[in-house]
């Protein structure tokens, strides 16, 4: 054996190939030290969300809500947790595709055994964006890149591996590299934790009801493309062979129109899969509460507002309760249902403008209190104390002025504050 090795190493071609192989192995071994170019996604992006995920004790996640920005906007874990009495967490990446969802479910199942996995439906429909994909692999495993990504996506991965190849902007600043070493070495650092909290805050608060091109978007149909084979395979793999989560639910967030920056795949092929494997499927676009797409439920033409989110979260919890055979907390249900609103309207009388919110159930909403904060051209001009009236009157005497009305709504029975911003003239 020893002689054979010596003979082999005496050959030039063998030594050369052996060195290349060894170099490849060392390269793989130091993967954890490599940044992946994730476009504009640095440490302030998705990474803190994932770091929050990694802080969860193993086995503690009971419901995982996975998806793209549609999922982040549509699911409020506080609402779902309180209604179901379970620990849920949001995972995912902006513009996420089902390929990434599959990766995230694998990661989830390494340390958790959730009772249910909720996949937001637009993950099936988003095309695979390289940038978004890189955000996922940059965030997962605290930025250490597992071998399987290299093996399954060699082109994409190699394209980001070598700075020489990629003109890697992160490597220019060597200081960031060392910060990264430190972060990997001792997570969670206080600064990262604070960032993660802010990120979570972002995901549960603040909505803008700004309906740019709302009417136009309502009238347009979304051009959909046939889902590619690898998407269907990933979808089927998640449905059939996911390593954990006995219950898989697909919930499609309400949306008026898809953004025009990426391709949208049609849902039909996936719906066939859901039917075939009896996957529970809830589409808020056809839900009675979202019929006609009331503008108050949207912050823009493809994401729901805080008003919409309360409803999608409550209805998601209701569906999960049915499927998991768990009771919904009736008091919490009544509490969150008090936050249901149908619409809002601006009425002008000369320069006096009155904004009125219309609760879906006046009786249930009777105890709500409203604080109104008025802005003109970005500057705060007035703030009211909490009051019982769901309306406010203000002076809009500047025809060129852009007015915004922020409303904070609270039900004294709990600590939940619904926060919304409405623009006058509407649509600005």
């Amino acid at each position: 054996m020893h002689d054979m090795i010596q003979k082999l190493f005496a050959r030039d071609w063998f030594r050369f190939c052996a060195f290349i192989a060894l170099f490849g192995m060392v390269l793989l071994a130091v993967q954890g030290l490599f940044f992946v170019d994730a476009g504009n996604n640095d440490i302030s992006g998705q990474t803190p969300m994932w770091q929050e995920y990694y802080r969860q004790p193993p086995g503690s996640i009971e419901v995982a809500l996975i998806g793209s920005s549609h999922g982040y906007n549509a699911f409020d874990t506080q609402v779902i947790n309180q209604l179901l009495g379970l620990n849920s967490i949001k995972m995912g990446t902006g513009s996420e595709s089902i390929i990434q969802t599959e990766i995230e479910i694998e990661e989830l199942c390494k340390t958790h055994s959730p009772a249910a996995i909720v996949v937001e439906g637009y993950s099936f429909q988003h095309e695979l964006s390289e940038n978004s994909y890189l955000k996922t692999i940059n965030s997962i495993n605290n930025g250490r890149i597992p071998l399987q990504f290299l093996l399954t996506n060699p082109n994409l991965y190699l394209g980001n591996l070598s700075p020489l190849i990629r003109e890697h902007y992160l490597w220019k600043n060597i200081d960031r590299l060392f910060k990264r070493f430190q972060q990997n070495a001792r997570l969670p650092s206080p600064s990262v934790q604070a960032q993660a909290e802010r990120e979570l805050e972002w995901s549960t608060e603040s909505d803008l009801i700004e309906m740019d091109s709302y009417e136009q978007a309502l009238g347009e149909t979304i051009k959909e493309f046939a889902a590619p084979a690898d998407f269907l395979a990933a979808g089927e793999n998640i449905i059939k062979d996911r390593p954990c989560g006995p219950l898989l639910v697909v919930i499609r967030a309400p949306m008026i129109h898809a953004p025009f920056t990426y391709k949208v795949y049609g849902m039909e092929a996936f719906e066939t899969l859901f039917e075939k494997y009896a996957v529970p499927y809830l589409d808020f676009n056809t839900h009675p509460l979202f019929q006609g797409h009331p503008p108050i439920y949207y912050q823009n033409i493809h994401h729901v507002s805080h008003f919409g989110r309360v409803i999608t979260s409550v209805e998601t919890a209701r569906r999960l309760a049915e499927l998991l055979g768990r009771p919904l907390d009736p008091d919490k249900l009544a509490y969150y249902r008090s936050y249901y609103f149908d619409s809002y309207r601006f009425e002008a009388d000369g320069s006096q403008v009155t904004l009125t919110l219309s609760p879906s159930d006046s009786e249930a909403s009777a105890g709500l209190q409203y604080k109104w904060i008025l802005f003109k051209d970005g500057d705060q001009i007035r703030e009211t104390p909490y009051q019982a009236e769901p309306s406010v009157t203000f002076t809009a005497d500047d025809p060129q002025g852009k007015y915004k009305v922020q409303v904070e709504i609270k039900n004294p029975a709990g600590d939940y504050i619904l926060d919304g911003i409405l623009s006058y003239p509407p649509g600005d």
Partner: protein
Amino acid sequence: MNFNSFLFFPFFFLVVILNYILPKRYRWLWLLITSYVFYSLSDIRYSLVLAACTAIAYTAGRLMGQSQDLKTRKRWMLGGVILNLAILFIFKYFNFFFESLSAALAAAGLQFTFRGIELLYPVGISFYIFQVISYLLDVFNGKAQSEKHFGHFALYVSFFPQLLIGPIERFNHLQPQLLNPSPFNYNSFINSLVRIAWGIFKKIVIADRLAILVNTVFSDPQAFESSKMVLAVLAFSFQIYIDFSAYCDIAIGTGRILGIDLVENFNRPYLAKSVGDFWRRWHISFSTWLRDYVFIPLNYRHRRSKPRLLWTSLDVMATFLISGLWHGASWTFVIWGGLHGLYQVWELLSKDWRDAWVRRLNIDRSSFAHKTFQVVFTFSLVSFSWLFFRAESVSDAIYMVKTIFTLDGTTAISAWVFNDGSLGLDAMDFLVMSYALLLFLLFEFVNRRINLFKALRTQPLWFRWAFYMVLIFSILIFGYYGKFNPEDFVYTRF
């Protein structure tokens, strides 16, 4: 395309593979095609200029070769040289010449308005035109046979490893190798790869970081104190050497992989003990070109002129003014060349006087202290001249010289803090640059006595592999990356 663009690596891989697959008699054609592709990838119009220069030199060379009459040969030689210089003038000096003329006439009270015209600047034109001129002069002087085959000659002019910034090759050295390259040799192949990797390390890890510091100060000298200017001048001294020698390392390495030995262009120039010695070590292919085709012919012409020393000094000055002008169409380069001329004239004129003082003071020339003094003094003179070479304008250079010698601003503590980002490099980059530079200087120092690349080949396998790994990973991890263009090697501007 340039050596530090990613595209070069797959390109070169393809060139090498096909080069060794093809029968030897067709390799010249393959190398010619790939050389033109290499050049055209920067700008296809460059190739037209290259082809024109090649055609002119080839024709003139052939006509010289066909004639025995000295006058006819001289006519063809001058025709070829003048036409090539005319091309160089048009692309490189046209604006400079007329702007200078306009300024001179204005100073004399005459009205002449010249609006600069935008002209293509083919990268490497100064190098390959000097190469074809050397060919024409060698053919005329009977040192080289005129090339009969146009394709073979075209390859001599355009061989891609040395096309952009040299080394400037002589026909007799390069042409036989191009037609009959050395066979593939594994050890040479590995040595060449190491040489290329070392060149990339020098360029990406050291020179590109030094460039940030240098560019920051030289682009706005008014914003910096004397201490930072000194640092920037020293940084440029190292940047230009490391950058240019890195290119040559890669060029020589790529050439050797193809079975061609290009000439060495540097021999640790900053260990030179005089400016004359510096020029025997710096950009050797260019300095020997100047020696053989400018200085010696001039000096030969003045061999009977008296006083001898004066004429020799004038010849030295003329040679170095040409050297300055060759580097660029700007008065800063002319001053740089002039300074080097003056340094050497001083060395020439003061030699006896200095020797007498050395004897009188009983100074041991072989002592370490004396040698160190010579090296430091020479480095200081050369660095001072680099200030003019790098300055954006003559007025900037004069401002910097004044600031440096008046120690302006150096009483402030901030003037001595270099790693706070004010020089364009943050603390970590500054540290990486400093350590890498120290490593390089150590390499240079040790390499005087021991050829480290050769020594590496005699080490056990595990050591060699560990060294290769460290080198490659240092490039990957500590490289200063960004968008590159051919101008990023300093000498591609000349």
